[in-house]
């Protein structure tokens, strides 16, 4: 297509413009659907939390069981997110920088936990570490508790958040290729220097994105944790489990007050995600500009 044809199409490209009726009904349907299914539930959480005033809402956070749940959730996220971060970086390095047989199978297996019901994620650890599980008798002789205790909660959380960092990094590092790393090595950098100074700065926004998604899921996981937790108040309840208990006790204000904490976390996650996407676009534009200048 030569430049002349483009110039003859007036601004706004009317030949590909949809009829006004079609356009506005699509926008209306979109807005109504998202309002009904996303914005209203989100608003409900904050509305119900504050329905009896700010003081009643604040009282929910003075409950020692609630504070214990918050502490446990932070602990679980602080262990499981770094574990999956190290795994994600290692897996992305192996998959994106090298070719080897069985690679596509490996990538599919990394995604596997996403396809498994969270309840089954809890069940598999009960079958292994539970009192009647494979290792149950051994653990009992050494008086180690995994199921209905914190280690089980950590394991179940690691399982459900397993793919997040890896699946963000793999496509990103694949797109970036190996040329920059090879250049660094040929200039005398060692492997670690190459990783810290060349690879990591290139993927830092994608990495951050993976970490915040992983963290949001780790702090909010319900099904898998519910199966292995045992629901011991003040000991093995995470924030989502504590919300469930309060809700089932008809303490709706407290349930929604604690839930609004998780809703705020979700909003912060979405905000960071938007910022990261914007940064990645800027970085992409800059690198495409610089490569044009280079050529």
């Amino acid at each position, binding site marked *: 297509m030569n430049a002349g044809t483009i110039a003859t199409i007036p601004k706004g490209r009317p030949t590909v413009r949809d009829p006004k009726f079609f356009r506005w009904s699509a926008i209306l349907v979109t807005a109504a659907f998202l309002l009904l299914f*996303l914005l209203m539930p989100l608003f409900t959480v904050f509305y119900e939390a504050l329905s009896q005033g700010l003081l009643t809402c604040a009282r929910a956070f003075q409950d020692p069981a609630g504070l214990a749940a918050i502490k446990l959730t932070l602990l679980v996220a602080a262990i499981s997110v770094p574990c999956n971060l190290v795994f994600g970086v290692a897996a992305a390095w192996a998959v994106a920088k090298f070719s080897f047989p069985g690679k596509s199978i490996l990538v599919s297996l990394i995604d596997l936990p996403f396809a498994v019901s969270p309840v089954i994620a809890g069940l598999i650890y009960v079958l292994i570490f539970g009192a009647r599980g494979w290792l149950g008798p051994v653990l009992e002789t050494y008086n180690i508790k995994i199921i209905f205790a914190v280690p089980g909660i950590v394991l179940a959380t690691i399982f459900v958040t397993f793919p997040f960092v890896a699946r963000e990094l793999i496509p990103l590092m694949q797109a970036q290729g190996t040329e920059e790393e090879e250049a660094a090595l040929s200039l005398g950098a060692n492997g670690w220097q190459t990783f810290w100074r060349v690879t990591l700065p290139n993927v830092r926004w994608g990495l951050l994105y993976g970490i915040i998604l992983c963290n949001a899921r780790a702090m909010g996981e319900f099904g898998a944790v519910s199966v292995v937790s045992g629901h011991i108040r003040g000991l093995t309840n995470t924030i989502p489990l504590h919300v469930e208990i309060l809700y089932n006790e008809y303490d709706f204000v407290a349930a929604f007050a604690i839930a609004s904490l998780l809703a705020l976390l979700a909003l912060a996650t979405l905000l960071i995600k938007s910022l990261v996407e914007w940064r990645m676009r800027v970085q992409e534009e800059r690198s495409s500009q610089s490569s044009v200048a280079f050529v």
Partner: protein
Amino acid sequence: MDIASLILAGKRRILPGFGLTLGFTLLYLSLVVLIPLSATFAKASGMGWPAFAKAVTAPRVLASFQLSFLTALYAAAINAVMGVIVAWSLVRYRFPGGRVLDAIVDLPFALPTAVAGIALTALYSVNGWLGHPIFAATGIKVAYTQLGILVALIFVGLPFVVRTVQPVLEDLDLEYEEASASLGASRWQTIRRVVWPELMPPALTGFALAFARAVGEYGSVVFIAGNMPMKTEIVPLLIVTKLEQYDYRGATAIAVVMLILSFLLLLLINLLQRWSTFSRAR
């Protein structure tokens, strides 16, 4: 798979760390995912075929399978249609609030399922903002019925179709549509013959992803479902119930059926994605 043979199989590698990273990846993957998952199959095979068949064909189990699968199918179908419309509006039209709506589409990924569950229940119960007018106008209850489960499953599956269709639509060059229009096609013919063939593979991928997620969903459903055996009891809840009754074998048998379905879905999704990238590369 043996790491040493993997290394020997390929050509000489320039970058360091292949053995270390692949070794760690395989070890971690095996310890966290593969060995625990295979424990389920080992447990199920230990119970023998007749006991397994009896456990998964009990009327209560069959009823929950039917409920879970059908409701997940309906939810995924609704999400497929609505997801294409949402993706189309967000990519093609500029309207006030469009950027905010685009950002909020990912909410179901970020909002914990239990929070979504109690919020939807409050909203759709007979006294709720949406449940009350629906009940007053039609006499239909949403919360604590199959309809409530459908609402929760639409919520959790909502981003999948939008986020698979959106990038394809963004990459779609307007020139093809202009060419189609200049050759005399009406706008409707262009959308049907030029745009839709490009959007169908990602829409199907998103549909399969939403379905896979919906079948296994637990947290958002248990609050709104009412959890009546034979009526509103989903499969994941039945697994939890059996575990609480220390019926490990029954729970494992149901889990194995679910897992096999998940693996088949994952395979289908991979094939769909390959088809999608193939038809785009063409």
